[in-house]
């Protein structure tokens, strides 16, 4: 059974002034974000602005040098990646990172026993269970990566550029399924993305990462309204 996420706290994921970088090179210079339960926050920004760095700081693969982080009200600052994962944060990494030499089944079960709901959301996976993950198409591998993360019954799902390398129809499908999951179980999502249509389909709020901080945060309606506006946030932060 995949029980809906019931939580007393309103904020599922919080960053307070997170600073992180590589060696002497600071990338994140004080990022603060708060994501309410059951909502989707999209994080957009030009390449090199630190989106993947933020993902790694979020799931514990990169140590932060300052600031704090909370998952469902619990302070997870400085915890190793596997502990943050066990506190309810699941990641769908950039490029999917499926285990090519494992079957789909093995991939999905890596985090733990696979709830049946996964096959409701991704019916195609049921027929692919015994295929080697390396033989799947990009879209199928993405399903495995998302299914694998969801199999952990997380409170927060972190997706790092899930649209990368996928064709538009597949991206659209992915958006539909993720929307369903959010509605079904009240999942909270941090979506790091460049793909505007997916952001519009899924997100409630859009934040822009520039120069290592959150430069601006707007409701997705503002984004849609000013899509082609040279003064709109999309143009200003992404130079699209």
């Amino acid at each position: 059974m995949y029980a809906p996420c019931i939580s007393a706290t309103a904020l599922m994921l919080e960053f307070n002034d997170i600073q992180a970088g590589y060696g002497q090179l600071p990338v994140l210079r004080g990022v603060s974000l708060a994501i309410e339960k059951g909502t989707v926050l999209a994080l957009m920004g030009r390449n090199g602005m630190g989106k993947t760095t933020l993902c790694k700081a979020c799931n514990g693969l990169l140590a932060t040098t300052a600031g704090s982080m909370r998952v469902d009200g619990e302070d997870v600052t400085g915890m190793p990646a596997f502990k943050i994962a066990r506190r309810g944060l699941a990641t769908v990494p950039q490029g999917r990172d499926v285990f090519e030499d494992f079957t789909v089944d093995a991939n999905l079960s890596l985090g733990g026993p696979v709830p049946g709901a996964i096959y409701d959301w991704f019916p195609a996976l049921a027929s692919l269970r015994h295929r080697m993950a390396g033989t799947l198409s990009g879209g199928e591998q993405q399903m495995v990566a998302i299914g694998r993360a969801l199999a952990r019954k997380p409170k927060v799902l972190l997706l790092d550029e899930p649209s990368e390398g996928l064709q538009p129809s597949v991206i659209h499908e992915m958006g539909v399924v993720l929307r369903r999951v959010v509605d079904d179980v009240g999942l909270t999502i941090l979506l790091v993305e460049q793909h505007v249509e997916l952001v519009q389909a899924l997100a409630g709020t859009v934040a822009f990462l520039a120069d290592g901080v959150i430069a601006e945060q707007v409701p997705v309606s503002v984004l849609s309204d000013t899509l082609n506006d040279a003064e709109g946030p999309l143009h200003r932060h992404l130079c699209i």
Partner: protein
Amino acid sequence: MIEALPIFLDALSFALILVLVASGLVIVFGMMGIINLAHGELFLLGAYTVVVAQGLGAPFWLAAALAPLVVGLAGLAIEFLLVRFVVHRPLDTILATWGLSIAIKQIVVLAFGPGSHSVAVPIDGAISMGGFTYPAYRIVLMAVATAVIAGAGYVLVRTRMGLLARAVIARPDTSASLGVNTGRVTQVSFAVGAGLAGLAGALVAPLISVDPQMGLGFLVPAFLAILVGGASSMTSLVAGGGLVGGLDSLLGGWVSPVLAQITIFVLAILVIRLRPGGLFPGRGRRP
């Protein structure tokens, strides 16, 4: 042709022992990207466990069963006290473990003396097959080694523990972000690799002279087996061990041990240059 059978059996037993020794190296290399140069001394400790047990009057098979546990614990200690501090500097890990191997060897020399000890063969007698006889203990050794290797392969491929180990080898970061305690998996794997080497040492003890320098004599062929076969899976390791162990034994017996070593080494170098992942590369780490 029947006369050649003992030589083939000798080669087979050597190959199986090599695979046992090499699997520990491969597990550690695959999972942590490091070479443990003290691995030969883990093999050594297994042999000396049997020597100690013999001195205490304990039966051989008890000692052989204890050896992997004792050496596995030693492996845990080594990982915890040394390896985890240098694991991010792979070349320095090679050096640090080499220093450890010197220390362990010297402790053995101080405790047991520099000379060799002999361990009584636990099963006397020979089995006659066709027109000749073959020592019974060697047959039993091969059976035990095969069972352990098959068991290890089974655990690796069909159990959850094995799945976690293979996941950490393939993609440690992604595994961690899925809640796998990669540190714990690495520790346990290191200990298991050590235990396998210790078992190999214990099994081989009755057949060769047990002295503090015996580690290197098995470490180098184990390296060559990994270079030739590839470091990515049990099957590639078995292939490498079979090839290297077989050639070493056969050529060593028919021609000369030195020529055998040179041939194998040339083969290993050719393989490593022409097929860097080994003859059976798979998706593991590469040079």
